[in-house]
């Protein structure tokens, strides 16, 4: 039991370090949020100006913006490590590999949560969608979605951190794996916004939970191999 507590402490130390560096220097957070806002704006131009159509498409647009911005955010968190070969130094510390994964994923989760909340707000405004009424299920969906994207993103960012053509390979490898999450999140969001007419919301949230659990376990179990050289 103490070993798990030690690993948790290490994961928190890594996430804390990422948070300080992120807030203080990188401004990745701000740029990612603006990127998501711009993507939403473009969706408006692409599908607008018919308000009804936009409102109908809102759940899909919301999650597309989150996923695309999420790729940038997770990538930024790992760039933080490669400035001065810090990633290699991190791997040389005598700490459990899954603790490193947990630390990086935790940082990713925090960024994704903030991103999700902001994009949700923007969608509410831009596409005139009443998010107030169903804020509970929507929050749950955003939290579960954030966990999934952070879990998968941290794995693939670690896999491609020293890879050639990394900018293309990260989305190319990551997006197909996120398909079930995108699908579940959009359906859950749509159900929540419509007041869950068919009672499907519970099922979609369960799908998201299953995806998150599987991907976190898979990521933690294999992240160590990505640090090998």
């Amino acid at each position, binding site marked *: 039991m103490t070993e798990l507590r030690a690993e948790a402490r290490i994961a928190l130390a890594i996430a804390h370090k990422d948070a300080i560096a992120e807030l203080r220097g990188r401004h990745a957070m701000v740029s990612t949020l603006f990127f998501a806002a711009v993507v939403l704006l473009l969706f408006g131009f692409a599908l607008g100006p018919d308000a009804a159509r936009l409102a109908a498409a809102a759940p899909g647009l919301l999650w597309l913006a989150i996923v695309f911005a999420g790729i940038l955010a997770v990538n930024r968190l790992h760039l933080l490590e490669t400035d001065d070969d810090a990633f290699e130094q991190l791997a040389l510390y005598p700490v459990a590999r899954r603790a490193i994964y947990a630390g990086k994923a935790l940082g990713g989760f925090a960024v994704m949560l903030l991103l999700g909340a902001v994009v949700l707000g923007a969608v509410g405004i831009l596409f005139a969608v009443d998010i107030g009424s169903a804020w509970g299920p929507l929050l749950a969906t955003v939290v579960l979605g954030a966990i999934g994207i952070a879990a998968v993103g941290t*794995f693939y960012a670690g*896999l491609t951190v020293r*890879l*050639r*053509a990394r900018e293309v*390979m990260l989305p*190319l*490898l990551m*997006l*197909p*794996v996120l*398909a*079930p999450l995108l*699908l*579940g999140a959009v*359906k859950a969001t749509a159900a929540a916004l419509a007041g869950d007419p*068919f009672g*499907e919301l519970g*099922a*979609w949230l369960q*799908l998201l939970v*299953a*995806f998150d659990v*599987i*991907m976190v376990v*898979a*990521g933690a179990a*294999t992240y160590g*191999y*990505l640090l*090998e*050289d």
Partner: protein
Amino acid sequence: MKTRILGFVALVTVVVVTVIGLFVVPPDANQGDAQRVMYPHVASAWLAYLSFGVTALCGIAWLWKRDLRFDAVALAGAEIGVIFTAFAIWGGMMWGRPIWGVFWQWEDPRLTTTALLLALYVGYLLFRRLTDDPERRATRAAVLGIVAAIDIPIVHFSVEWWRGLHQTATIAAPDRVLDPAAPMAFVGTLLGFVGAFTLTWLYLMIRRYQLARAEADREEAARVERIVSARTVEAAR
């Protein structure tokens, strides 16, 4: 030599089942001749899933035993898997067009899952080409193959739900639904195709494995040769 025989047997069985599939077995009562596309389509889809299962298992075996021969099998599985995935998608489209009138049927979980499969494993193959060190490539490709294989059932399950959580499984389709009481001939032909294609798959896997091993051995020999020459030069000093 045994492989050559396997190859010949595979060729003969494929020709035989093709003739049966195209000409001998009667067309489906509802779908008519279009139903004949099902045979190679289903056989290809089965081999796509089998191939990626092999790749994932070999990935685990490499991480455990660190023997590069598993990596060669994993590579063969991924490459041949991508090819059968492409065939399965093509078959799905050639079947969908006459039946639904559209090439791409979003509601069909098999089609959408297979498409994601293609994306996953084209990514796998591209990733392998971008990594040079044989052992580092083997380790990372193994992990990639395992995560991709874990993702496939989730994708299939979620697309299954996506189609309609509470509607009945049958797709609300025009009258041309496959005749449920398919006579034995269809099932027989389908099994024949699966058998013939699996033999072909086995033959191709062995050949691709041999090729991967030949290339790995050549690479290995070059590496060792450079080491030996460095040592002889030094020793002569």
